[in-house]
């Protein structure tokens, strides 16, 4: 297995730390020439995706762990960055009356359906050495993937939070005006008090990011131990004809997305019951 060479990358260091803490033992075959997850590839004879997924989780393959971790890092990072911009933006559009506001809302809604490949291509052109931001050397790095996914989920979070904030403003608007809040103060109040409902908007963005392959494969390059995430691995394994393995990864991805969404729903529902 190939995962034994030393690496200085922080993400990998993080992986290794976690593995060491969980008492994980690295592969027996140090220079053995098994391909990644070879032990699962032979399941083509009985292609049960769920079985494959379960055995992958059970054996906690180091490569797999790294891929899942990077997927989470990239998508959570993208959602965090997009949220920092999109939540105030959504609130601003919900509150402020300005010329062209309707056009902005329509644009935002339309951009919710932006194909990831198109975003990937745009970011690729920007970050390529031949492009305007080429000197930063970001192409084929996780940062590039975070940028692309941020652009993909930003309109989703902004559009959904606009609706949420508009609803809350129906209720709070008079109080905020009476108090003489500045737009910034109003937005801060509404964002904070709407935080549990906004979690739903954020999760919608996360769902889109974690499931997206078109952009990350273009700007990340699907480089092993560097930019390989769950969706690009699924694409790769499909192209290698390892359909059971690809499906197993798909099941894992689904489970992960389900788990995170369920957790967010429970948090926001409990909080909403409690705090309106």
């Amino acid at each position, binding site marked *: 297995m190939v995962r034994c060479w030393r690496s200085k990358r922080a993400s990998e260091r993080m992986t290794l730390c976690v593995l060491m803490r969980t008492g994980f033992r690295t592969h027996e075959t140090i220079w053995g020439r098994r391909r990644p997850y070879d032990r699962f590839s032979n399941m083509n004879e009985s292609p049960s995706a769920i079985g494959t997924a379960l055995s992958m989780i059970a054996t906690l393959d180091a490569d797999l762990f790294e891929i899942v971790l990077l997927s989470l890092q990239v998508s959570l990072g993208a959602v965090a960055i997009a949220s920092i911009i999109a939540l105030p933006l959504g609130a601003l559009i919900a509150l402020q009356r300005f010329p062209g506001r309707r056009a902005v809302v329509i644009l935002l809604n339309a951009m919710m359906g932006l194909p990831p490949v198109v975003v990937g291509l745009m970011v690729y052109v920007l970050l390529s050495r031949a492009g305007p931001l080429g000197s930063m050397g970001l192409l084929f790095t996780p940062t590039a993937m975070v940028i692309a996914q941020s652009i993909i989920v930003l309109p989703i979070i902004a559009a959904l939070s606009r609706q949420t904030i508009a609803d809350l403003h129906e209720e709070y608007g008079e*109080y905020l005006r009476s108090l003489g809040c500045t737009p910034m103060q109003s937005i801060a109040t509404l964002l904070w*008090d709407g935080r549990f409902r906004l979690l739903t908007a954020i999760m919608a963005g996360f769902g889109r990011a974690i499931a997206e392959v078109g952009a990350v494969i273009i700007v990340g390059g699907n480089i092993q131990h560097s930019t390989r995430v769950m969706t690009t691995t699924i694409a790769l394994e499909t192209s290698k004809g390892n359909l059971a393995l690809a499906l197993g990864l798909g099941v894992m991805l689904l489970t992960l997305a389900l788990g995170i969404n369920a957790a967010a729903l429970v948090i926001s529902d409990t909080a909403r019951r409690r705090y309106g």
Partner: protein
Amino acid sequence: MADGAPHTEAREYEQRDSIAKHPLLPLVARGVDFGINGQRIIDDVSFWIGSSGRTVILGPNGAGKSVMLRLCHGLLKPTRGEIRWGDMSVADAREQQAMTSQKPVLLRRTVNDNLLHVLRVKGVPLGERQALVDAALEQAGLTDLGGRHARDLSGGQQQRLAIARAFVLKPKVLLLDEPTANLDPAAVRGVEELIGAIGAAGTKILMTTHDIAQAKRLAADVMFLNQGRLLEHAPAMEFFSSPKDPVAARFLAGELPA
């Protein structure tokens, strides 16, 4: 008569009143109209309020009381006419006022944090905030509930919190929209006591109610509003003992639906 008579009456009333040292008074409305979608909600209302006592806008449901209050607070703009507080425009005067609404708008936070929110917005220095909060909580009888979530309070407690929050920075004017609607008698008493205490401390109170008994208990002067028109404006004693307007008389006799 809606135009001339109350105006004159108020002036007479004011002349008999000695305490007129209030920076936002007199509150003057001249020929104020307000309409939405061609429907006239406030119809040519003029008045003059110079007293710093408690003014109650009384009238049946749908009379336009809440709209009148919001016009005075500047949350709505008159379609015609003008309102001024002393020598200030409504917008400038709002900074020294606070308002509560019939259904209290409480933030999804603790009682404490609801009060702190006002202080933060108004830029009160961090070190002074908690003392102000504690004083407001004590005045409203909510001292033990500071850590509770605002929306877990009873109706009366919620209304008292809303008033305490409005009063935390001691505004010159407090506008209260139906502060005791839908409250049980015990809760009503608590809210009225709080209003009484605030009024006694020199804050001008302008409030609406459809409750005749409450108006009798709280009002220094009464403005009687019906179908968007100001039919009578008089000192409370005069108004309740001998209303000059026939509609007001019928209302006091319980012949109009409150």
